[in-house]
């Protein structure tokens, strides 16, 4: 046992700063949305758990000990359980229970993996574990927890239900903060700290591509605005895992850029979904249309966010996707082709979404006017995606110097 290391330490460099900024931005946007929209019901409980969720996400980013990370991890799951069940209907409770059970069960397996690390290495401090080798089995056990948290095949199953049940800002926090907790642990443990067998990373990459393809396919056949976005989240998380599992300069840079691009854009799109649902009274794509005519600003902003996720320049999502493809093709052309097909799925379901919700003519006769403040939030998120893409070298430089900080000291 190494007792010199202060286990309750939170510390980080520029990489952690970058991640915390992303999570913080999404959390802030969701809080603003909540301030406007969540006015009745269990308001106190709601806001407490929202803050707990965002805080535990940022805590995971900065924590230097795996046991602290695990504690925050479960805290996030708990907050999530209450937030998904916010409306307390039959369905919402069931969805929340699913989310809790899948997350908790997988986290239990993860705990076994962590225990194995503790027994073998004598510590759970990331600073001491740095550079040591992590065998396949404990790595896989930890991965189970990560896949459940970050909703990847085969453990994504709780996610679409949770998205359907949860209030809109919680959806944004889910895809922008809660699911990134898993990504952050993956990145900190497997990419930055410990050495894992190549076979493990190949397994993750393969799983990521398959997950991305399957979820992309389901998103393409989805019936509602939200469920398209829910499966799209699963699909995009696959891209992030793919990039990070490739490690190396391009893998890390692209993976982190992707986290940022996706979190910002997806949060904005969930807000859009919320606005449209509020206005039309439902979110069924077949019965929507013509929002571009009634609210052009929202249409332009949402279109920009969709393009960013689909990886079209000049938005930041393009650079993220490009980096992932560069990192992947370096390793294997086949995985690269899989990623491109998945990107095609993304483009296709985004076009389908835009066409059915914004283009054409309105199919729901009485659309209530939209909340201007929230349209403004969506627009700001869209402009952030655009600006980050135009000055893409700034985030890239930040990640670059963060990497020298983190890996240079190795």
């Amino acid at each position, binding site marked *: 046992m190494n007792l010199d290391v202060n286990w309750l330490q939170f510390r980080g460099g520029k990489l952690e700063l970058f991640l915390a900024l992303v999570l913080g931005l999404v959390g802030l946007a969701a809080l603003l949305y909540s301030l406007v929209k969540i006015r009745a019901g269990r308001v106190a409980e709601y806001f407490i758990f929202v803050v707990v969720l965002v805080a535990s996400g940022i805590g995971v980013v900065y924590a230097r000990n795996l046991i602290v990370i695990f504690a925050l991890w479960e805290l996030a799951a708990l907050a999530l359980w209450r937030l998904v069940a916010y409306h307390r209907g039959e369905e919402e409770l069931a969805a929340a229970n699913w989310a809790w059970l899948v997350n908790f069960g997988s986290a239990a397996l993860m705990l076994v993996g962590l225990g194995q690390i503790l027994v073998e290495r004598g510590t759970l401090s990331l600073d001491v574990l740095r550079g040591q080798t992590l065998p396949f089995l404990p790595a896989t056990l930890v991965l189970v927890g990560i896949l459940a948290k970050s909703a990847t095949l085969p453990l994504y*199953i709780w996610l679409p239900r949770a998205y359907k049940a949860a209030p809109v800002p919680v959806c944004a926090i889910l895809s922008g903060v809660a699911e990134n907790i898993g990504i952050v642990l993956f990145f900190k443990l497997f990419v930055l700290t410990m050495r894992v067998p190549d076979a493990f990373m190949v397994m993750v990459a393969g799983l990521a591509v398959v997950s991305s*393809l399957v979820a992309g396919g*389901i998103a393409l*056949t989805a019936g509602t605005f939200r469920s398209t976005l829910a499966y799209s989240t699963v699909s995009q998380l696959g891209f992030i895992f793919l990039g990070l599992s490739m490690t190396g*300069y391009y893998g890390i*840079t692209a993976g982190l850029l992707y986290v940022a691009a996706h979190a910002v854009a997806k949060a904005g799109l969930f807000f859009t979904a919320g606005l449209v649902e509020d206005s039309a009274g439902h979110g069924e794509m077949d019965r929507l249309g013509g929002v571009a005519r009634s609210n052009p600003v929202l249409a332009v902003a949402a279109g920009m966010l969709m393009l960013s996720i689909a990886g079209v320049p000049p938005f930041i999502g*393009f650079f993220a996707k490009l980096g992932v493809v560069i990192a992947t093709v370096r390793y294997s052309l086949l995985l690269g082709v899989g990623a*491109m097909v998945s990107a*095609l799925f993304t483009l296709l379901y985004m076009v389908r979404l835009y066409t059915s919700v914004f283009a054409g003519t309105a199919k729901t006769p009485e659309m209530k006017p939209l909340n201007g403040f929230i349209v403004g939030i969506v627009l700001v998120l869209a402009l952030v995606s655009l600006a980050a893409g135009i000055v893409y070298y700034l985030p890239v430089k930040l990640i670059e110097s963060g990497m020298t900080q983190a890996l240079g000291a190795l």
Partner: protein
Amino acid sequence: MHTFLLMLLVPLAAGILGYVVTRLRNEFSFIGAVVALYYAVRVFIQSRHGTVAYELGQVAGVPVALRVDALSGFVLLCVAAFAVLVLLFSLRYMRGRDGARGFFFFVLLGLACSNGVLLSANLLVMLFFWGVLLIVLYGLLLPGRPGSEKVAAKALVIVGLSDFAMLLGIVLVAVQFGWIDMAPSAPMPLREPAAIIGFLLIAAGALAKAGSMPLHSWIPSAAETAPAAVMAYIPASLDKLLGIYLLTRLSVDIFDISSNVAVRNVLMTVGALTILCAVMMALVQKRVMKLLAFHSVSQVGYMVLGIGTGIPVGIAGGLFHMLNNTIYKTGLFLSAGSVEMWGKTDEIDELGGLAGRMPVTFVSFLVAALAIAGVPPLNGFVSKWMVYQGVVELAKEGNKLYPLFLIAAMLGSVLTLASFLKLIHSMFLGQRPAALARTREAGFAMWLPPVVLAFACILFGVFAYEIPLRGLIYPSLPLLVEPVGIWQPVLTTLLVLASLGIGALVYLFGTARRTTATRTFVGGEMIADDEESRVTGTAFYTPVKHLPILDELLKYGERGAFDIYNWLTGSLRALGLISRHVVDRVLTALFEFTGSMVRLAGRGLSFVQNGSLPLYVGWVFIGATIFLLILALK
């Protein structure tokens, strides 16, 4: 600020200003395009004296730099010139139309991005600007006749597919051979598999942009919903210029296409098939815009065929055909736009006899139509002639397929002429329907661009060597193009003029004018001279529809059976349905099964948890016994 940056920023700024300050939209847009043209001329002149480069730095290991050389200087000039002409036409044409505000913005954004594509010094930088053009395409196609949103989505998906293929190709090549410069000191031979796959993937992007089969299908669909100005700007000028520019760069500067016979045959086959299939589809069209759209697909075939030969004269011919096609096709779309606007329709059946009403439009349309059909001495003839020569040269290499390519190219040319005879007859000659009685000539801003383009058709045909070939095409290629055959355009022009003169004399003094006119009759009975008895040209080539095999193919073609978009979305949707109904269901069932197992176990355990103390004491005893046993056995 550097001229290169201004070429990107001026159109962009003008577009944004025009979008925001709606009252000065026309002024901002037009001035922006003209300033961009001014810079393009300056950069073009600079590029004649050598390459000009502008380094912006290095991000993530990728050098970001802008550069102009002879080839890009030439295409830059073309892009800016066509943007100005289309904008001039649109000032009047787009007035009051749905989506006019976005139109001007996207036209200028398209101009800025095209400049970016052409100025990019390596493929990765180019990919950025190339991708933004996807948004331009969608934005321009979105407003329009009902159903336009579906067409815009279709275009976005098809071009997006090719963009992704290109991205993969560029990354593959970059990962294997380093960041690919647009004009390295020596082209790379196409030998290694990575180079060949990379080339084909990037070429797919270029071909889709140019509108070659099988990635063409959004163009005819767009013709049904989009305004003529959009058709003239995107598929007719911008996309052709950029697509063929990239294909030329790829085949001549970056890779050496002549080093791989198989790749050349693939390209030439794509070109030949595109020429023939698209022109067949054009023959049976009933709407002017859609007919022109199929021709603009068909013409790409010549460019691809020419570049695919890998022979210097063929490549030069392909590049020259790009210029020529852009000139006459833009002219055709613009004049057809005038006709559509003043005639209120582009159904061939409902048009006719407009030559007298719209003489300027008629003449410019006629010249452009003859040029596209490859009638000497117009420009289309010269470039097609060069492409033919390139194909014939293949014989020297022992290429067995070349007769097929040559036949396809020539047959395509004949059918093009045939289909334009039909079009000219039905639009401008023949009887004028009553609805068009009050049609008048388009205004100055609308007829000037087609007239300028028609003039260019003549100029670039008659003085083909003196102006375009020697001034624009040959300097752009790092190849030594041998002087072409015995074709002498000036002499031919004189002969053509002479024969026209003789024809005129015969007409004036011969018996041709002494015809007898009589009223229409059937079986001796006079028929009223009304709409009912008007003969239209739509059915000129109906027999084509009844040829065996071909009739079935055309029928399927019309229904979209060969449309790659339907195949693509269909197969991806099928995958999606499998994912939804198999993978998702199975996983859910698995989880539910686990859940019910846990519940069952819980129910089982609840029997031992009944609150009676003796039972609990019993459990404790049993447990302790087992524990002790284990300890004892150890």
